[in-house]
């Protein structure tokens, strides 16, 4: 190293230095995720505390299964499902029509849809339910002259009022979801469809909708899960759904929390089933993006375990 004249010696010396500064490693030590362990411990303690606290509460858990399967609860369950499905169906059909109107070249159609969405998104859905239910106060008959005529208070049953309140409100949100779906489809796809001689209608059905579905389904599933729970609002207009059923039970025996927990269990089951259904529908509409990822447990394991996929 000292001699600058002797190139050979210099090269040999630096090679020696390299050897001493960069020894052969004997073991690879993966990074330990201490932070993750600490966070996990805190959470486990917190959850255990809540569970313990609830177990000490004066809840008569033994009564819950009975309420869960009582006939009025099962009637409420069926009504909840009927209402949620009917409202979502109405929302999807009307929402698709509104979305088509919104993107239409006809300005009157576009403005009408815009105003509809503006109104129905602007008013709380509970208030909408009450408006429909009490419509008979101000509108005595519902009629199209020459076609039909009904007294409003006969037509506007709790179910119909709930259907209109929740369904029309939902259609305003579905309209925006469907419109976002339409907009997500590349314009080139539409031109390609036109170029092979498809009409606009066929293009919508064969090219735009199937691709828009990928964008439409996740938020629609979300909305349906919300809808399953929003039907509980219909209890205020005396529709016998799950919450109304729980109210019936506890007004009889004063087991308030127990009856509500039984209803809550049904909601959890419905929502879980809906989520699973949503997953499969999403898969069906994404034939080119199907993936199978690792399960939850194995993801927790890999995240906590120190691991390095290499050797020395």
């Amino acid at each position, binding site marked *: 190293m000292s001699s600058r004249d002797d190139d050979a010696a210099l090269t040999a010396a630096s090679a020696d230095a390299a050897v001493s500064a960069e020894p052969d490693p004997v073991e690879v030590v993966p990074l330990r995720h201490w932070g993750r362990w600490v966070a996990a411990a805190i959470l486990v303690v917190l959850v255990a505390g809540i569970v313990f606290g609830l177990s000490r509460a004066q809840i008569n858990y033994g009564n819950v299964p009975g309420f869960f399967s009582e006939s009025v609860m099962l009637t409420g369950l069926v009504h909840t499902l009927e209402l949620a499905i009917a409202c979502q169906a109405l929302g999807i059909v009307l929402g698709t029509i509104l979305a088509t109107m919104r993107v239409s070249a006809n300005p009157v159609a576009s403005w009408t849809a815009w105003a509809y969405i503006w109104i129905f998104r602007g008013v709380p859905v509970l208030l909408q339910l009450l408006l429909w239910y009490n419509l008979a106060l101000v509108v005595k008959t519902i009629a199209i002259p020459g076609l039909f005529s009904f007294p409003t208070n006969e037509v506007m049953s709790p179910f119909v009022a709930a259907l209109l309140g929740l369904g029309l409100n939902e259609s305003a949100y579905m309209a925006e979801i469907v419109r976002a779906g339409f907009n997500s489809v590349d314009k*080139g796809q539409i031109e390609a469809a036109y170029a092979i001689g498809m009409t606009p209608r066929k293009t919508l059905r064969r090219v735009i909708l199937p691709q828009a579905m990928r964008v439409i389904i996740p938020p629609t599933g979300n909305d349906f899960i919300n809808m399953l729970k929003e039907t509980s609002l219909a209890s205020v207009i005396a529709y016998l759904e799950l919450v109304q059923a729980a109210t019936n039970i506890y007004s009889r025996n004063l087991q308030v929390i127990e009856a509500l927990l039984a209803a809550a269990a049904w909601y959890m089951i419905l929502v879980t089933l809906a989520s699973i259904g949503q997953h499969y529908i999403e898969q069906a509409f994404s034939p*080119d993006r199907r993936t199978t990822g690792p399960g939850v447990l194995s993801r927790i394991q890999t995240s906590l375990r120190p691991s390095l996929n290499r050797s020395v």
Partner: protein
Amino acid sequence: MNSSVEQRRPLLRAVNVHKRYGGREVLRGIDLQVTSGEVVCLLGPSGGGKSTFLRCINHLERVDEGVIWVDGLPVGYRLTNGKLHELHERDVAVQRRSVGMVFQRFNLFANRTALENVTEGPVSVLHMPKREAETLGRELLSSVGLLEWAGNYPAQLSGGQQQRVAIARALAMKPKLMLFDEPTSALDPELVGEVLRVMRNLAEGGMTMVIVTHEVGFARDVAQEVAFMFDGRIVEQGPPKDVLAHPEHQRTQQFLASVL
């Protein structure tokens, strides 16, 4: 009608085509004739109106003045008693069946496999039985060298493969005329050759083609006619051996000097 007259009638005849976007005139009187079996390349710098003109030929853009005749029919219109009546979209769709188009960005249906992309037109537009359409689809995919990729989705194909599927998709409609809108401009350089090879085969098979391209070499080898477009006008037109070798217009000379 006399058959020789029939033969002399051009398959495509554009007469004084104008197109404006807002106040800007992008096509300022295009006249072009393409006879059956002929290959015409449109060359020129970007913004010259080449793609717009091509899109007018199958009515993806509506012309503001002039008429484009394809196979004796005015594109987008019906001629009765000397009046051009604007066609309903579904009748325009019928006209488009006989004109195939290949896009710069391929535009394959993203949710369909290569084979399904090719069979979509025959099945949903021509109502061909599915089995028959698949046989046709496989033939066409094989002719562009992609038979073993039939089950792949566009996202799983290279740009060159996607463009070849797009050509097969257009051919599945058995068009009389094929339009190519810069078919190789979005491709990596090493993928350009495979697409040009397919196009050359088509030309040799007698397909009538109008091609917007920057591939001057391809135009020289394959086209019977090249047309240079600048600022919405065709400034020079003729057989490639004349126009490419001895351009007369100053803008053509400048353009060729810059790309060669």
